[in-house]
Protein backbone atom coordinates (compact mmCIF):
# COMPACT_ATOMS: atom_id res chain seq x y z
CA UNK A 1 0.00 0.00 0.00
CA UNK A 2 1.35 3.42 -0.99
CA UNK A 3 0.90 6.25 1.50
CA UNK A 4 1.37 9.95 0.60
CA UNK A 5 4.29 12.18 1.75
CA UNK A 6 2.19 13.51 4.67
CA UNK A 7 2.10 9.96 6.12
CA UNK A 8 5.91 9.93 6.12
CA UNK A 9 5.95 13.31 7.91
CA UNK A 10 3.71 11.89 10.64
CA UNK A 11 5.68 8.62 10.79
CA UNK A 12 2.62 6.54 9.90
CA UNK A 13 3.15 2.96 8.73
CA UNK A 14 0.57 0.46 7.43
CA UNK A 15 -0.45 -2.76 9.15
CA UNK A 16 -3.24 -5.10 8.14
CA UNK A 17 -5.96 -6.76 10.21
CA UNK A 18 -6.96 -10.45 9.97
CA UNK A 19 -9.19 -9.65 6.97
CA UNK A 20 -6.41 -7.83 5.09
CA UNK A 21 -7.95 -4.41 5.72
CA UNK A 22 -5.48 -1.57 6.39
CA UNK A 23 -4.78 -0.34 9.94
CA UNK A 24 -2.42 2.63 10.28
CA UNK A 25 0.08 2.98 13.13
CA UNK A 26 1.23 6.39 14.42
CA UNK A 27 4.08 6.11 16.96
CA UNK A 28 4.30 8.98 19.47
CA UNK A 29 7.07 11.57 19.03
CA UNK A 30 7.99 15.23 19.60
CA UNK A 31 6.83 16.08 16.06
CA UNK A 32 3.17 15.18 16.83
CA UNK A 33 2.86 16.77 20.31
CA UNK A 34 0.14 19.29 21.10
CA UNK A 35 0.06 20.22 24.76
CA UNK A 36 2.94 18.52 26.58
CA UNK A 37 2.46 14.75 26.87
CA UNK A 38 -0.49 14.64 24.48
CA UNK A 39 -0.96 14.16 20.76
CA UNK A 40 -1.97 17.25 18.76
CA UNK A 41 -5.60 17.08 17.62
CA UNK A 42 -4.45 17.98 14.12
CA UNK A 43 -2.09 14.98 14.03
CA UNK A 44 -4.95 12.70 15.17
CA UNK A 45 -7.18 14.18 12.45
CA UNK A 46 -4.38 13.65 9.94
CA UNK A 47 -4.05 9.99 10.97
CA UNK A 48 -7.84 9.53 10.71
CA UNK A 49 -7.89 11.02 7.20
CA UNK A 50 -5.07 8.71 6.08
CA UNK A 51 -6.98 5.73 7.55
CA UNK A 52 -10.22 6.78 5.84
CA UNK A 53 -8.44 7.16 2.50
CA UNK A 54 -6.65 3.81 2.94
CA UNK A 55 -10.00 2.08 3.60
CA UNK A 56 -11.51 3.74 0.55
CA UNK A 57 -8.56 2.75 -1.67
CA UNK A 58 -8.83 -0.80 -0.30
CA UNK A 59 -12.56 -0.92 -1.18
CA UNK A 60 -11.96 0.53 -4.64
CA UNK A 61 -9.21 -2.05 -5.29
CA UNK A 62 -11.66 -4.82 -4.27
CA UNK A 63 -14.03 -3.41 -6.90
CA UNK A 64 -11.36 -3.81 -9.56
CA UNK A 65 -10.16 -0.20 -9.79
CA UNK A 66 -6.50 -1.22 -9.93
CA UNK A 67 -3.82 -1.48 -7.25
CA UNK A 68 -4.73 0.81 -4.32
CA UNK A 69 -7.83 1.79 -6.33
CA UNK A 70 -5.49 4.07 -8.26
CA UNK A 71 -7.78 4.25 -11.29
CA UNK A 72 -10.23 6.42 -9.34
CA UNK A 73 -9.53 10.01 -8.28
CA UNK A 74 -10.62 10.88 -4.73
CA UNK A 75 -11.50 14.45 -3.75
CA UNK A 76 -12.32 14.88 -0.04
CA UNK A 77 -15.15 17.42 0.31
CA UNK A 78 -15.92 17.39 4.03
CA UNK A 79 -13.92 15.97 6.92
CA UNK A 80 -15.35 16.02 10.47
CA UNK A 81 -13.42 14.91 13.55
CA UNK A 82 -14.94 14.14 16.97
CA UNK A 83 -12.43 14.10 19.82
CA UNK A 84 -13.37 11.66 22.58
CA UNK A 85 -10.34 11.63 24.89
CA UNK A 86 -6.80 12.98 24.98
CA UNK A 87 -4.24 11.05 22.94
CA UNK A 88 -1.46 10.04 25.36
CA UNK A 89 2.26 9.53 24.67
CA UNK A 90 1.99 6.05 23.18
CA UNK A 91 1.18 4.26 19.90
CA UNK A 92 -2.06 5.21 18.17
CA UNK A 93 -3.80 3.10 15.54
CA UNK A 94 -6.60 4.03 13.14
CA UNK A 95 -8.83 2.13 10.74
CA UNK A 96 -11.46 3.28 8.27
CA UNK A 97 -14.73 1.73 7.12
CA UNK A 98 -16.55 2.61 3.91
CA UNK A 99 -20.23 3.10 4.75
CA UNK A 100 -21.29 3.71 1.17
CA UNK A 101 -19.36 3.45 -2.07
CA UNK A 102 -21.36 5.05 -4.86
CA UNK A 103 -20.50 6.03 -8.39
CA UNK A 104 -19.80 9.67 -7.61
CA UNK A 105 -19.69 9.85 -3.80
CA UNK A 106 -18.13 7.78 -1.03
CA UNK A 107 -18.95 8.08 2.70
CA UNK A 108 -16.19 6.82 4.98
CA UNK A 109 -15.78 6.61 8.76
CA UNK A 110 -12.55 6.20 10.70
CA UNK A 111 -11.70 5.48 14.34
CA UNK A 112 -8.42 6.04 16.23
CA UNK A 113 -7.51 4.22 19.44
CA UNK A 114 -4.55 3.52 21.71
CA UNK A 115 -4.66 0.50 24.08
CA UNK A 116 -8.26 -0.53 23.53
CA UNK A 117 -10.05 -0.42 20.18
CA UNK A 118 -13.41 -0.10 21.97
CA UNK A 119 -12.22 3.12 23.70
CA UNK A 120 -11.47 5.46 20.77
CA UNK A 121 -9.49 8.68 21.22
CA UNK A 122 -11.20 10.18 18.17
CA UNK A 123 -13.40 9.33 15.21
CA UNK A 124 -14.05 11.00 11.89
CA UNK A 125 -16.34 11.06 8.90
CA UNK A 126 -15.17 11.88 5.40
CA UNK A 127 -17.34 12.49 2.36
CA UNK A 128 -15.52 12.35 -0.98
CA UNK A 129 -16.22 12.92 -4.63
CA UNK A 130 -15.04 10.07 -6.84
CA UNK A 131 -13.67 10.69 -10.32
CA UNK A 132 -14.05 7.48 -12.26
CA UNK A 133 -12.58 7.27 -15.73
CA UNK A 134 -15.33 6.56 -18.23
CA UNK A 135 -14.83 3.39 -20.27
CA UNK A 136 -13.89 3.90 -23.92
Amino acid at each position, binding site marked *: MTLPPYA*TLLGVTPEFDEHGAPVLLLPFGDHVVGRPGFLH*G*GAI*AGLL*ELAALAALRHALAAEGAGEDGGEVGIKPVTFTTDFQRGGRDKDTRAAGAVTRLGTRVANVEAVAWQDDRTRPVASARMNCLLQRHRPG
Partner: protein
Amino acid sequence: MQPFDPARFAKRLTWGHGGRLGIAYHAHGPDWVELALPFSPDQVGDPARGTLASGPIVTLIDMATSLAIWTRRGAFLPHATLDLRVDHLRAAAPGRTVIGRGTCTRLTPSVAFVRGEAHDGDPADPVAHVAGTFMLMDAA
Protein backbone atom coordinates in the same frame (compact mmCIF):
# COMPACT_ATOMS: atom_id res chain seq x y z
CA MET B 1 -1.36 39.75 35.11
CA GLN B 2 -1.16 40.90 31.50
CA PRO B 3 -3.98 39.79 29.19
CA PHE B 4 -3.24 36.93 26.78
CA ASP B 5 -1.07 38.12 23.88
CA PRO B 6 -1.46 35.79 20.87
CA ALA B 7 1.46 37.35 18.98
CA ARG B 8 3.89 36.74 21.83
CA PHE B 9 2.42 33.29 22.57
CA ALA B 10 2.47 32.12 18.93
CA LYS B 11 6.07 33.21 18.39
CA ARG B 12 7.14 30.60 20.93
CA LEU B 13 5.21 27.78 19.18
CA THR B 14 8.30 26.39 17.48
CA TRP B 15 8.03 22.99 19.20
CA GLY B 16 5.58 20.11 18.83
CA HIS B 17 3.38 19.34 15.86
CA GLY B 18 2.76 22.98 14.92
CA GLY B 19 6.50 23.61 14.94
CA ARG B 20 7.12 20.54 12.74
CA LEU B 21 4.65 21.95 10.20
CA GLY B 22 6.27 25.42 10.38
CA ILE B 23 3.09 27.15 11.58
CA ALA B 24 3.77 30.79 12.55
CA TYR B 25 1.91 33.88 13.80
CA HIS B 26 0.38 36.14 11.13
CA ALA B 27 -2.16 38.59 12.65
CA HIS B 28 -4.88 38.92 15.28
CA GLY B 29 -7.87 40.95 16.48
CA PRO B 30 -10.09 40.91 19.60
CA ASP B 31 -11.69 37.52 18.81
CA TRP B 32 -9.63 36.15 15.92
CA VAL B 33 -6.11 34.96 15.18
CA GLU B 34 -4.41 34.24 11.86
CA LEU B 35 -1.56 31.75 11.54
CA ALA B 36 0.51 30.92 8.46
CA LEU B 37 1.31 27.41 7.17
CA PRO B 38 4.23 27.52 4.70
CA PHE B 39 3.99 25.06 1.81
CA SER B 40 6.12 21.97 2.16
CA PRO B 41 6.14 18.97 -0.21
CA ASP B 42 6.10 16.59 2.77
CA GLN B 43 2.59 17.78 3.71
CA VAL B 44 1.08 16.61 0.42
CA GLY B 45 -1.85 14.22 0.82
CA ASP B 46 -2.61 13.62 -2.86
CA PRO B 47 0.59 13.32 -4.92
CA ALA B 48 -1.44 13.06 -8.15
CA ARG B 49 -2.82 16.58 -7.59
CA GLY B 50 -0.01 17.98 -5.40
CA THR B 51 -2.54 19.08 -2.80
CA LEU B 52 -2.16 19.34 0.97
CA ALA B 53 -3.59 16.66 3.26
CA SER B 54 -6.43 17.67 5.60
CA GLY B 55 -4.23 17.12 8.65
CA PRO B 56 -2.07 20.26 8.26
CA ILE B 57 -5.22 22.37 7.59
CA VAL B 58 -6.94 20.92 10.69
CA THR B 59 -3.78 21.57 12.74
CA LEU B 60 -3.56 25.17 11.46
CA ILE B 61 -7.22 25.95 12.19
CA ASP B 62 -7.25 24.04 15.50
CA MET B 63 -4.34 26.22 16.68
CA ALA B 64 -5.78 29.47 15.25
CA THR B 65 -9.20 28.86 16.85
CA SER B 66 -7.56 27.84 20.16
CA LEU B 67 -5.59 31.09 20.18
CA ALA B 68 -8.77 33.01 19.26
CA ILE B 69 -10.53 31.59 22.34
CA TRP B 70 -7.65 32.55 24.65
CA THR B 71 -7.52 35.99 23.02
CA ARG B 72 -11.25 36.57 23.46
CA ARG B 73 -11.16 35.27 27.06
CA GLY B 74 -8.02 37.29 27.77
CA ALA B 75 -6.30 34.37 29.47
CA PHE B 76 -4.55 31.05 28.76
CA LEU B 77 -7.11 28.64 30.22
CA PRO B 78 -7.42 24.89 29.59
CA HIS B 79 -9.80 23.69 26.86
CA ALA B 80 -10.11 20.67 24.58
CA THR B 81 -11.35 20.37 21.01
CA LEU B 82 -14.73 18.61 20.94
CA ASP B 83 -15.21 18.53 17.18
CA LEU B 84 -13.97 20.21 14.04
CA ARG B 85 -15.43 20.02 10.54
CA VAL B 86 -13.45 21.06 7.49
CA ASP B 87 -15.14 21.84 4.18
CA HIS B 88 -12.60 21.61 1.38
CA LEU B 89 -13.86 24.30 -1.03
CA ARG B 90 -10.99 23.85 -3.46
CA ALA B 91 -7.42 22.59 -3.46
CA ALA B 92 -4.76 25.02 -2.24
CA ALA B 93 -2.35 25.84 -5.06
CA PRO B 94 0.89 23.85 -4.65
CA GLY B 95 3.72 26.07 -3.40
CA ARG B 96 1.51 28.68 -1.71
CA THR B 97 1.52 29.55 1.98
CA VAL B 98 -1.90 28.90 3.53
CA ILE B 99 -3.26 31.51 5.95
CA GLY B 100 -5.73 30.17 8.52
CA ARG B 101 -8.01 32.50 10.48
CA GLY B 102 -9.77 31.23 13.58
CA THR B 103 -12.60 33.22 15.15
CA CYS B 104 -14.32 32.57 18.47
CA THR B 105 -17.92 33.38 17.63
CA ARG B 106 -19.60 32.55 20.95
CA LEU B 107 -18.64 31.68 24.52
CA THR B 108 -20.94 29.89 26.95
CA PRO B 109 -19.86 28.90 30.49
CA SER B 110 -18.65 25.50 29.24
CA VAL B 111 -18.37 25.62 25.43
CA ALA B 112 -16.60 27.85 22.90
CA PHE B 113 -17.96 27.96 19.35
CA VAL B 114 -15.44 28.68 16.62
CA ARG B 115 -15.25 29.22 12.89
CA GLY B 116 -12.28 29.20 10.60
CA GLU B 117 -11.32 30.01 7.05
CA ALA B 118 -8.17 29.15 5.16
CA HIS B 119 -6.93 30.82 1.97
CA ASP B 120 -3.78 30.72 -0.13
CA GLY B 121 -3.43 34.41 -0.97
CA ASP B 122 -6.90 35.85 -1.53
CA PRO B 123 -9.24 35.84 1.50
CA ALA B 124 -12.19 36.24 -0.90
CA ASP B 125 -11.30 32.89 -2.52
CA PRO B 126 -10.89 30.52 0.45
CA VAL B 127 -9.66 26.93 0.23
CA ALA B 128 -11.50 25.73 3.34
CA HIS B 129 -14.26 26.62 5.78
CA VAL B 130 -14.18 25.22 9.31
CA ALA B 131 -16.71 25.01 12.14
CA GLY B 132 -15.90 23.58 15.55
CA THR B 133 -16.48 23.53 19.29
CA PHE B 134 -14.18 23.40 22.32
CA MET B 135 -14.99 22.28 25.87
CA LEU B 136 -13.82 24.84 28.42
CA MET B 137 -12.07 22.75 31.06
CA ASP B 138 -11.87 25.47 33.72
CA ALA B 139 -15.69 25.59 33.88
CA ALA B 140 -17.34 24.19 36.97
